[in-house]
């Protein structure tokens, strides 16, 4: 059995943070220089009592309101790295809050590659006959992990949730997939004391750390390879792809991918300016915005590629219906 994306909704927290706001806490930051590299002018910040599960609930409710019947939901997959608790699984809390009956529900602990991984898992559940349709929801509140003086992370990351209705399809509309991992980079994008392992000094540092240069080098090495592998697997060329949607990491990263692959700029969708880097939610949010902007038509072939924390990456082709 085949799979397709039947609907997308997203939810952004109300609070906006401008780059002028960053300057208040960090008078020495040269905002123009930062903005030139990030491509981000505004981020969304979850409130103190608003978690990724809360954002996910809002996005899922919008999806249900748009016509998805709760009794038809066979699975809820929540992609998050900011769960409410280490245990229980946030997807279980979400199932109860949405009033969905017993269904498959679990979290996927992945970041920027998580949406494509989630599509592959959803597709596998459907093709194996375990499910007919369900919700894949990507939600994170990385801003809660970020120090106000962290110039690498704070200008980039933003909070959001995007919920996607995945359903059984007659035609082959999703795939091939390219999923991969290089765990040697695990400590280049990390919240060091977020789990059981305490560092050798016994320090508890519950803050996000990113080595921008290392993550950039990984991205520049791996993303072109993943794109070329997908083209090879599908026997397509760059000119056969109608739209590329990459994880909205930063302007500098997207510009470098365009350069490395010699992609036509008008075929690469970019929307991080007013939303920021929302981790696993960037690709479904970009997909939704591209549809609203009439950048996607029925029958279009779209390449999605997510990459980052892990290191982990995932790419796939979808045919839009």
């Amino acid at each position, binding site marked *: 059995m085949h799979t397709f994306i039947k609907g997308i909704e997203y939810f952004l927290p109300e609070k906006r943070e401008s780059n002028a706001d960053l300057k208040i806490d960090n008078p020495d930051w040269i905002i123009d*220089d*930062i903005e030139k*590299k990030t491509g981000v002018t505004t981020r969304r910040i979850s409130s103190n009592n608003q978690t990724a599960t809360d954002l996910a609930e809002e996005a899922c409710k919008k999806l249900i309101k748009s016509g998805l019947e709760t009794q038809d939901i066979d699975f809820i997959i929540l992609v998050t790295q900011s769960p409410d608790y280490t245990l229980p699984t946030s997807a279980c809390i979400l199932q109860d809050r949405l009033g969905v009956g017993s269904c498959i529900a679990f979290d996927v602990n992945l970041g920027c590659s998580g949406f494509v991984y989630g599509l592959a898992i959803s597709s596998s559940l459907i093709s194996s006959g375990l499910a007919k349709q369900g919700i894949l929801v990507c939600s994170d509140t990385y801003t809660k992990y970020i120090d106000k003086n962290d*110039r*690498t992370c704070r200008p980039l990351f933003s909070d959001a949730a995007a919920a996607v209705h995945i359903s059984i399809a007659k035609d082959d509309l999703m795939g091939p997939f390219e999923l991969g991992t290089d765990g040697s980079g695990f400590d280049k994008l990390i919240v060091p004391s977020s789990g059981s392992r305490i560092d050798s000094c016994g320090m508890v540092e519950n803050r996000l750390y990113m*080595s*921008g*240069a*290392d993550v*950039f*080098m*990984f991205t*520049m*090495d791996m993303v*072109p390879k993943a794109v070329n592998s997908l083209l090879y697997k599908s026997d397509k060329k760059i000119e056969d792809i109608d739209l590329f949607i990459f994880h909205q990491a930063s302007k*500098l990263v997207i510009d*470098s991918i365009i*350069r*490395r692959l010699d992609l036509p700029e008008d075929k690469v969708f970019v929307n991080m300016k007013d939303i920021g880097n929302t981790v696993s939610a960037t690709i479904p949010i970009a997909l939704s915005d591209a549809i609203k902007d009439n950048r996607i038509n029925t029958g279009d072939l779209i390449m999605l590629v997510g990459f980052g924390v892990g290191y982990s990456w995932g790419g796939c082709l979808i045919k839009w219906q």
Partner: protein
Amino acid sequence: MSNIKDEILEIISKALEVDNKKIDFDSSVENVDEWDSLGHLSILVSLDKKFNGNLAGIKEMASVDSVKSIFKILENNNLI
């Protein structure tokens, strides 16, 4: 060989948006204020452009902190 090194010094000064006289063989994160984490990213992008993407597979480029270490890695990887 020295021409390519001069060219790289020029690339680094442009990436850091500083006068080319400010960047020489002894320049490093220690003595160039503009060579911070954002400046470092600019250097990586500019060198990746210069070497047509051949820089991307060289992980240790992420942690270089001086002109000398950049030259050493480029030489070890037969890029200069």
